[in-house]
Each structure stands twice: as C-alpha cells, then as structure tokens.
C-alpha cells in the first residue's frame, strides 16, 4: 500500500520546523528542562511556594503510581510480567482483573510482546484493568480506499496514520461516522497493528461540519470562567516517552508555541492560552479523581471536535484536555470508553 511510505513522517517534518527560534516542543527541544523550570521562574516573580508544581515534576516512587506501561513478557493465571523502561515488573492478577485486547478478554489471552498498560488497585500490586495493543486515531480523513483511511492527526508532530476498519465493525462505525470521506473528522479506537490501526469502535459521533470549518466558540466577555468543564480524551504516545504523565492542551499560545499549520481557529470551547510546561488540574468527574499535570504538547486535533462525553451525565461541548494514555488511566478513565467528563483549572 503506497500510504505506508507516508506514515509517521511527522517527526522529520517537525525537526525542520523546530529550526525556528522560540518553538515550544517538549519532545524535540534541545533543552527540555526549560519547560520544567517555568513554574519555578513564575514563582520567583509572584513569590508562590505551592507544592503543586513541585510534586508534578518529581519522580514518584513506583508503588505510588497506579499505572504501569510496558511490553508483556509472560502471562500466567496469577501473574503478568511486563518489560518496562526500568526493568521487569511482576503484577498479580486477581479474579476481578479485566483485560481488553480488541474486546473484553480474560487476562490469559494477552500475548507475549503486546504493548500493555495496567492500572493497579490503590496501594496494592494487583492489576485492576489491563489494556493490550489499544490504539486510537483521531483527526481529518485525507484519503479513502474502501475501508482503508489515511488520517491527518492534526499537527506536524503527530503526522498521519492509516486506519483499516474491521469488517465486523464497519456498520457500528458507520452509524456514528456516516461520512467516511475526505475533509471530515473521525475518531476511532481499535487494535494497534504494525503500521496501522485496526478500527473496532467509534470513540464519538461524527461532527456534521467539515474539519476545516469547525463552529465558532461561544463569545465570552470579562474573564474566562474557570474551572472549565468539558471532555477529556486520550491519545497514543507516538514520539512521547512511554509512561509520560501530561496532556496535549487545545489552546497553546500561538505566538510562542508555533502556529500549527493545520490551525483552524480556537476550537469550540474557550480556554485560556497556556504554554508547554504550564500546570493544570484535571478532575475526572466520573471517578472523582484529580491530579496536577503539565501541558506537554499541542492538542490541535482536540480543538476540532465539539463533542460531549456521556460517561456520567452529559458534559458541556468541547475537548478541554487530550491526555497521555498513562494520565488518562491514572485519573481513573477506561481507555476503551474514549473519554470522561472533566473539569480543568489552572494549577498555579
């Protein structure tokens, strides 16, 4: 398939763009530590000594973190072994442990070599949920060839992706995404395969507008009311390091964060401009969990969608945070659900 030559060229394109001065990019910056220091520099001006940004950047002890990411090395009825960046991690399985590999499966169905993310029970090394080979693609359809789609993921860094819609899932996806044609948006979850995503389920409903003409955001006078409520979604790591805790923010200041070539306006929810390294507090309204997280990248794709999350009630329109997989799971979200109702506040 000729599309394979086009996949994942976002990294090369992004390096060229990064030659410009003042372009915020956490992944490809020559000095990423400067983003970490911004909170401290702000504190030097305003005299704040809050613990929020300190704890955000500190290394957490392994036992304090509920989420583990790695590659499945071995699965037995009672233990799953993951190869992680820090070595081998053995996690206990219980009868209540549930797993996802394209669908809900017994943990024993996980395969050696699967990229997995595990959420453990609080303060115990026992797996609560396991997701294996889960992937997601959201963005604009560029080309179609039957059930094969080429998707622009919204920014030069994220590049493009190939999606193959599984025949058994075609009808289910078409009900939510009736316009599988160039120029329209798509957001699907499925099994990550070598070089493409096997789409299994829609993550949301297709917006009626074309990707290049999203609706105008509501007008606001005075100050932007915070905290802001909306939808929190997740994205695949791509070039990000595994296990990164953070979010792609849909409203990075275009003056200092490099105007994205795919920019189509501020999106349908008004968010205050921030920069990479800014600290925000995200609360999962469904699970009742919150955390202070750093902004790690630009959420250009999230800006295009004006959908609601209905996991617990109906959220206001708009995606306010595009979390890394680890952050999404750490906050109590289930990856196969695609979203949770969230509120966002500025942490400082």
């Amino acid at each position, binding site marked *: 398939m000729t599309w394979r030559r086009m996949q994942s060229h976002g990294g090369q394109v992004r390096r060229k763009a990064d030659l410009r001065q003042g372009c915020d990019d956490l992944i490809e910056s020559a000095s990423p530590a400067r983003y970490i220091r*911004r909170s401290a520099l702000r504190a030097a*001006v305003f005299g704040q000594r809050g613990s929020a940004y300190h704890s955000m*950047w500190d290394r957490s002890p392994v036992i304090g973190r509920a989420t583990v990411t790695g590659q499945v090395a071995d699965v037995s009825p009672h233990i799953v072994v993951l190869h992680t960046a820090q070595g081998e991690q053995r996690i206990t399985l219980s009868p209540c442990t549930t797993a996802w590999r394209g669908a809900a499966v017994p943990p024993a169905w996980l395969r050696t070599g699967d990229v997995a993310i595990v959420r453990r029970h609080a303060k115990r090394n026992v797996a609560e949920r396991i997701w294996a080979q889960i992937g997601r693609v959201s963005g604009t359809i560029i080309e179609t060839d039957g059930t094969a789609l080429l998707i622009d993921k919204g920014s030069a860094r994220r590049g493009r992706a190939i999606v193959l819609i599984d025949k058994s899932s075609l009808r289910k996806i078409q009900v939510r995404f*009736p316009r599988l044609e160039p120029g329209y948006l798509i957001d699907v979850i499925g099994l990550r395969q070598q070089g493409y995503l096997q789409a299994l389920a829609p993550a949301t409903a297709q917006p009626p*507008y074309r990707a290049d003409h999203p609706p105008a955001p509501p007008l606001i006078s005075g100050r932007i009311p915070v905290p802001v409520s909306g939808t929190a979604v997740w994205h695949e790591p791509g070039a990000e390091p595994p296990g990164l805790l953070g979010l792609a923010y849909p409203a990075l200041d275009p003056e200092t964060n490099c105007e994205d070539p795919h920019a189509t306006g501020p999106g349908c929810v008004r968010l205050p401009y921030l920069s990479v390294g800014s600290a925000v507090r995200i609360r999962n309204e469904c699970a009742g969990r919150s955390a202070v997280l750093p902004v790690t990248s630009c959420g250009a794709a999230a800006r295009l969608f004006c959908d609601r999350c209905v996991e617990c009630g109906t959220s206001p329109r708009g995606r306010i945070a595009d979390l890394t997989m680890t952050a999404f799971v750490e906050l109590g979200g289930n990856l196969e659900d695609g979203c949770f109702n969230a509120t966002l506040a500025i942490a400082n």
Partner: protein
Amino acid sequence: MHVLGTAGGNVLGASREVQIPLLAALLIGGCAAKARRALSARSIEAGIGPTAVFPLRLHRPVAIALCAGELALGGGLLLTAGPLAAGPLSAGPAAHAIRSATALLFGTAVGALHELRARQPDAGCGCFGDLSDTPVSWRVMTRSALLCAAAIAAIGVPPLHRPASAGQALTMLAVAATELVVIAILSPEVGEIMVRLGHSEPCEVRRVPVSRTLAALHGSAPWRHYQHHLLATDPIDVWREECWQYAAFPGTVDGRRVEVVFAVYLEPRHPQVRAGIADPGAGARSRDDSAAAFPLPVSN
C-alpha cells in the same frame, strides 16, 4: 359599545394586515441567515437543525428546499400583498395559496422542532443561521406556533393599503411593535445578538505578539531597574499563561549567575510589569536534589 366594537375591529384588522410584512421579513431574513452560514461553513447543511430529523442523504436537498421555500414564500407574501399586484399574482387565489403555505410551513416547523428536541436535545434550530445555536426550547416552539397563527390570520386579508388616518397608522404601529416585542421575548437569537454587540475578548484568549510585549517591557520601570544586571537583552525563554506573558533573561547579581524573569500583564495600555530573580538551577531539581532532566517522570 358600538365605539368599542369599532375600535376592536380596527385593532383586529390592523393585526391581520401587519402579519404579512412581518412574516415576509422573518422568512426572507431566515433564508438569508442560513445562506450566510452555508457560505461561511462551505456546507449547505451545516447547522440547519431540522434537517437532522431526516436521513443523511436528504440533509442537503431538505436544507436547500427549506431555504428556497422561505425565500419564495417571503417574496410571494410581499408580491401578493400590495394593491398593484396583477395577473396571476393578484390577491385572491395566489395570495390565499401563499399565506396558507406559510401557515403550513410554520405549523410543520412546530412538529419538526419538537422532534429535533427529542432526538438531539443539544441541537439548535438553525432558524437564523449562526444566531440559532442554542438548544431548541419551548420558547422557539411557541414562536413557530405563534407565527403559524399569524399566517392563518393573514388569510383573506384584502390587499394592503396606506392607513386611512393617523389613528389607524398609530394602531398598526402599536400592533407591530407589540408583536415584535413578543417575538423578541420568544427568540434566543436576540440574546445572542446582545452578547455579540457587547463582546470584548477576555485577556486570557487575546492574541498579543511577543514583540509588542517586549516593547512594553523595555519601557517599564522594572526593566530599567534590572537592566544593568542582564547579560543579554534577548530573552532565553518566553512563554504565556492566561493574561501574563513571561520572559526570562540571563543575568548576574553580586557576581552570581541568575535568571531575571519579567511578567507582563497583557492589557493594551500601561501593562503591569513584575520581576523576579531565580537561581538558574531552581525548579530543575527533583525532591532528592538530583538534576531532573528529560524524560519527565516515568511510570515505572
């Protein structure tokens, strides 16, 4: 009693006559607003709420038919209203048909809006393009029912003519004004217009070039105070959070390397500027005092 009956008849007559130009203006205005939205969105069916109750393949033809119908009926009401209408457009059969069709349109709209509200509670009616994005409510449905009643009342009205007296003119104006107030009360679009008229962009979302911020900084008292400590006048880092833009410069204080940080409030005139000094290593250390570098905290 006879006087009251005569006065009441005048008001009733004026009410019926006023409906024709009002309905025509609303129909033509609605079509114009929908067309404007379609042009700006480059999509005919963008935001036209009631089309959502039809199958996907009918969205575009229904949207076109709806706008064309509104334009045709609005123009037809005006053409058949005057005393000079002649030929096939003379008052009588044509006027009767157009006014009946208008009543049918608004009556159908009530049902369509009810269906839309049930199927897509968050969808706007799209009646007046971008202004009609608020979810369909009882106000909008009541407005459509009122306009349906107005169109029915206009059936059989003789050709419009100039008021016979000042009193009659005042009566017609009063009736028209009252009806406009009632329609405005039932229209969420009026609130949207008021918001747009009174809108000024909050500073959190205002785009401000970095060059303008730095120019304001260079003219500020904190800059003059710390300028002599700076090793370079070009910032080593610039970033923004909400209404503040930050710029960090390398500097020295008492022979010690520092970073001088300025924060500029993004307001158009005389922006507030604050400054601080930070140790170059500040914030780059983790709790265990080891230099924290990329990658960020890992999960394992």
